[in-house]
Every structure is written in C-alpha cells, then in structure tokens.
C-alpha cells in the first residue's frame, strides 16, 4: 500500500466507526420516543455481541493441529477464574496475557 492508500483505509475505518456511533442519534431524534423493538435490541444485543467478539478473536485457532487450542483454552480459563475471584479487569487481562505468552513461547 502507498501512503495515500493507507490514509484512505484509516479514514474509511474512522468514518465507518463514526457512522455506527452517530446513526442512532440521527435516526431516533430526542423529541420522539424510541420504538419498543429498538429498546429491546439495545438490551438484548450486548451480551450476544461480546460472545461473538470472543469467537472472532479465536477464529484462527486450529483445533485439529498444533496444540489443538490448548493454550487459548488454559489462558481463557485463567482469565475467568481470576476475574471471578478478584473482579479486577486489569489483573485478569494481565495474568491471562502473560500466561498465554509463556505457554506459547515456552510450552507449546
């Protein structure tokens, strides 16, 4: 990619992001009540979307070869256990990431 192609790519991504952030405010003006269906989606979607984002992060894990996703499985289990125990976002992320790096670099 040339520099201008890189700038266009980044600008397009910024525009796409802005579209998703501004659109609800442009469609559902503050002087009218929000449709019930949209209100329902706003409450039901976040949990589903976060689940999807986890799978998105793991999409290149090969269960049939290499370590069969064992490093990811162990690291995610560690994140869950530590987060349920301490409820400290930073600690859970730090332990999981450092643990995963050690597993990938030294064990698998």
């Amino acid at each position, binding site marked *: 990619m040339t520099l201008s192609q*890189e700038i*266009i*790519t*980044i600008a*397009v*991504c*910024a*525009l*796409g*992001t802005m*579209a*998703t*952030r*501004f*659109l*609800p*405010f442009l469609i*559902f003006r*503050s002087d009218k009540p*929000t449709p019930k*269906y*949209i209100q*329902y*989606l*706003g409450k*039901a*979607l*976040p*949990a*589903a*979307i*976060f*689940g*999807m*984002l*986890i*799978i*998105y*992060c793991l*999409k*290149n894990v090969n269960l049939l070869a290499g370590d069969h996703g064992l*490093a*990811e499985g162990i*690291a*995610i289990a560690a*994140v*869950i256990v530590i*987060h*349920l125990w301490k409820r400290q*976002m*930073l600690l*859970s*992320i730090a332990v*999981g*990431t450092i643990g*995963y*790096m050690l*597993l*990938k*670099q030294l064990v698998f």
Partner: protein
Amino acid sequence: MHTNENILTTKKQSASLLALKTAFPYTIPIFAGFWFLGLTYGIYMNVSGFSFWYPFFMSLTIFGGSLEFVVVNLLLGSFNPLQALAMSLMIQARHLFYGISMLDKFKGTGWKKCYLIFGMCDETFSINYSAQIPAQVDRGWFMFWVTVLNQIYWVSGSTIGGLVGSVLTFNTEGLDFAMTALFVVIFLEQWLKEKSHWTALIGLAASVLCLFLFGADDFLIPSMMLILGALTLLRKPLEQKEGASL
C-alpha cells in the same frame, strides 16, 4: 466582592472542575487497562513495521481498540477500502446499540454531545451508562471528562507503545491475546449482570456455527444476521424470561 459576571464565570469553572474531580476516579481502571492494551497495540503496530504516527492518528480518529487491531492486518494486505468499510461497520456495529441506550442520557448536553458520541467506545459507554453521578455534579461535564480522559489514556498508551516497540528486545508472541482477554472479561461482566444467559449463549452459538460454516474470513456478517434474527424471533420468550433484567 464579586460582580455578577465574575460569580457566573466562577460557577461555570467550578462546575467543570467538580465534574472532572468526580469523573477521574471512575477512569482509573480504564487508565490501567488502556495503557496496557494501548501499549500492546502500539507495540503490535511497531513490530508489524509501522511508525508511532500510525497508532497515534488511528487512536485519535478511530478510537476503537478492537477495530484498530484489525486495521493492522488490513494495512498489511492489499488496498481495499470497501472491505475496510465493511469490516469497520461490522466490528463497530455494536455502537449502534450503545447509541440507542444513550439517547436519553445525552439529552441537553449542548455542544459536548457531538464529542460524547464521537468518543463512545466500549469502556466510555460502560462508565457513562452505569455511573451514579451525584446530583450536584453536572452530568454533561462528567460524561465529557470520562470521554476525554479515556481517549487521552488510549492515544498516549498506543503512541508510547509505537515508540518503545522498536527498542523492545523480548519476544512478543502471544501479546495480542490481551484483546481476547479483554472481551472475555467484558463478556463475563455482562454475564454476571444478567439473570438469564440466553442472549449471551445465542451470541456464542451463532458465532461458532457461522465460523464452522463460513470459515474465519467470512463468518462475521452471517453471525450478526443470525444473532439479530434469533433475538427478533425469540423476543417474546426472552422478554418474558428476563423481565426486569432485559
């Protein structure tokens, strides 16, 4: 003795200052998290061959961690702005629902509203949506400072990561797992908050199914459509089941 004008100015200054003082403690965990993730992202960009200007400008203009990680791969591939637009709309589509949740809360915030919407990333949304703002603190200024502080943390973290990445000598393999861990934690927080877990399970199951059917490169759009379809079809039972929590 103050003149009326002086009193007004002082009041305005103290409203913004009080809001800053109230907002700052809420953002401390985000400071830690964003510096860690921002540094990771900056280092990731650096080891991928980009100067610190890239994470700086991307954090300033896009200000969305998950997409910025993905853009690194887009920049390494061939030029395809339509794909970049589709990717950003898909990955960021969840902001549509943050916006829907903030329609009321952003009312009456005046000129700040534009920036509040611009800077509404996952973490800023979470704080501004859930914080119990004391009655004497101006709501608009509070949310404004949360947004400003979080963006400062993210931009500075990723820029520093981009700068120090070149002098780092340790093996960074696996560092990108920080993003997976972040989403696991956010997912878990959401899970603990909800009485019924059907929507979370629908998200996981639909994504796994589509990943299996469509493969790693093409599963995101079908997943979102399947999730939207399932939530629409199951609206009645889900609303009944989750009642107040939904």
